[in-house]
């Protein structure tokens, strides 16, 4: 129980930093927020699987199961998957942001109004 507390505080810090950046108008800050958010989630899953001190997962001769409680391997597998996925997403988002900065000339999300024009005319009202 005690081991987890430190990590929980760290995760909270990660999350608050990530959401602060996600709320910024500049895409480059949002993308940094996304990266930190991904790491926060990875730590969260890792901690959710409960933490143990270093116990080698070695099964003694003549047994079929480890004799001490070893680290839970499943969250590690989940985190590994999540790291791969979030890294590929980060790469895609980074290129997307760069391309849209080149094409649209801005990285302020509030100024990106091509797909949602600011003054949309009303639909025709007479027949």
């Amino acid at each position, binding site marked *: 129980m005690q081991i987890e507390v430190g990590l929980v505080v760290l995760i909270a810090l990660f999350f608050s930093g990530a959401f602060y950046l*996600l709320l910024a108008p500049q895409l480059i800050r949002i993308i940094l927020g996304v990266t930190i958010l991904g790491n926060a989630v990875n730590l*969260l899953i890792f901690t959710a699987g409960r933490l143990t001190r270093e116990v080698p997962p070695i099964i003694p001769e003549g047994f079929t199961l480890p004799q001490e*409680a*070893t680290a839970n391997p499943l969250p590690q597998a989940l985190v590994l998957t999540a790291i791969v*996925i979030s890294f590929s997403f980060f790469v*895609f988002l980074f290129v997307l942001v760069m391309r*849209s900065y080149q094409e649209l000339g801005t990285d302020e999300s509030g100024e990106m109004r091509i*797909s949602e024009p600011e003054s949309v005319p009303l639909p025709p009202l007479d027949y």
Partner: protein
Amino acid sequence: MALALNSNILSLGEAFVTTPVPWGDQLVIAPVVLMLLGACVGMLFQAYPRVQGLNALVFTILLLFSTLLLFARVAEHGPIAMTMGRWLPPFGITFLANPFNTLLTSVTAFLALCLVIYGWADSDFQLRRYGFYPLFMILLAGVNGTFLTDDLFNLYVWFEVLLIASFGLLILGNSKIQLDGAVKYAFLNFLATTLFLISIGYLYGLVGALNFQDIGQALKEVPHSAPIETIFVLFVLAFAIKAAAFPVNFWLPASYHTPRIVVTALFAALVTKVGIYALLRISVLFMGQIDFSPTGFSLDSALGVLAIATMFSGVLGALAQSDLRRLFCYLIISGIGFMLAGLAIGNLQALTGVIVYMVTSMGTLPAIYIAGAVAGRCSGGFDLHRLGGMYGRAPFLSGLFFILALTLSGFPPFLGFWSKFLLLKAALEAHFPVLAASLLVSSFLTILAVMRVWSYVFWRAAPTAVEGDGALPFDDSYSCSATPRLSGWEGVCILGPLLALSIFLIAFSFFPNFLLESASKAALELLSPEAVLQMGGISL
């Protein structure tokens, strides 16, 4: 999980599947494997656009056969499970084919086949060289995986497969408007899947299981102090973003109108439905275990408010649009509201209504987008001010559009009516008067919205001059916008899928028994017998 290993299983042999899966049951993974294989073959022929089109056709036909076989097999023998890597369910990842998801995969395969054929007319060779068909098939693999998996983390992985393929499809064409739409779509959807991952992390920390059946069992045993309500709300938020429910739906009208129509049609049919499907699966797990009474709010009324807000924001948004594609975007959102209404009622009849509604809108939305696309390409833009005179140019197409518009708004003889009838009946019988009234009023507004499209785009004569004050700027983003010919080969590629989807919808309109029975079987399977007893048959 380490503890479970120590206490429950004494010999490793008991943790393994020792009998091989029968050949017939391998069909469970066929919808995913076929699409991934098709995408790989497509990538090998990157430089040959014609081969890519044929390759996609062959693999979607195989997909349709395999899903129909699977549907028939499940209907005959009951649910089929298959566990990967020989580990037994708590450890291995299970794919489970039941009446619900086989119905959805069959409809998915059918509309995928239609869209592959329509894609021949709507995608130029450059688009195919950039990987239109492989991305299309990867998206379908993601959708089928999401439908068939029985493991929560695996569901997340398929969500991501679907999402990355949809990013690729959204930016194919590389125009400014697409990049703008893709930025909004990508960030908000990525946030949604991250929220989903956070909820999985919390749920795993609480129950130590990822398999749906295990989670359901474990949730019954968690202590009352456990924060399952919080976890459920996190799940609902994540899936509400994916499904485009009201306060978190702004990514949809910002992005769905930007890519090619074939891509928009695919997204409209599948991407939001996957969010609803996941929401249904998760809600069924949690129902009966969660208790919101200390907050003074009941779950069904909270979901009902969400549903009503989604319905009305969607349909009112549709009434205010002058871009045809965005108008349909808002109608997608309105449809999500109807499905959420069924979930809020939450009994067998309502869930049957939701499933019939899902099937209906999976057939109607792509067809209506195709018909709208033909009108738009004939007029060089999707502005309602500019469109018109389609009845004179293409009377057959106009007739199909009229039927599709009636289906979408739920006019009596057509399929949309049956799903809305079931939802309305369930709402009245379960004493949700406000919800029932909202269903009726928003259906009426939907009729107004689609009939306005019909009268402007198809019925009236083509406008001679566009009045300068009201019109949108000329839309040059649709680079494939040479006027389509509705005869010859191109006509077959456009009208064939449209006709197939319409026949599918009309056939089920007049002979709805098969669909209604399958849907009610699926809803029963979803609720599972003991869940029905616990719920007392009424609310969530």
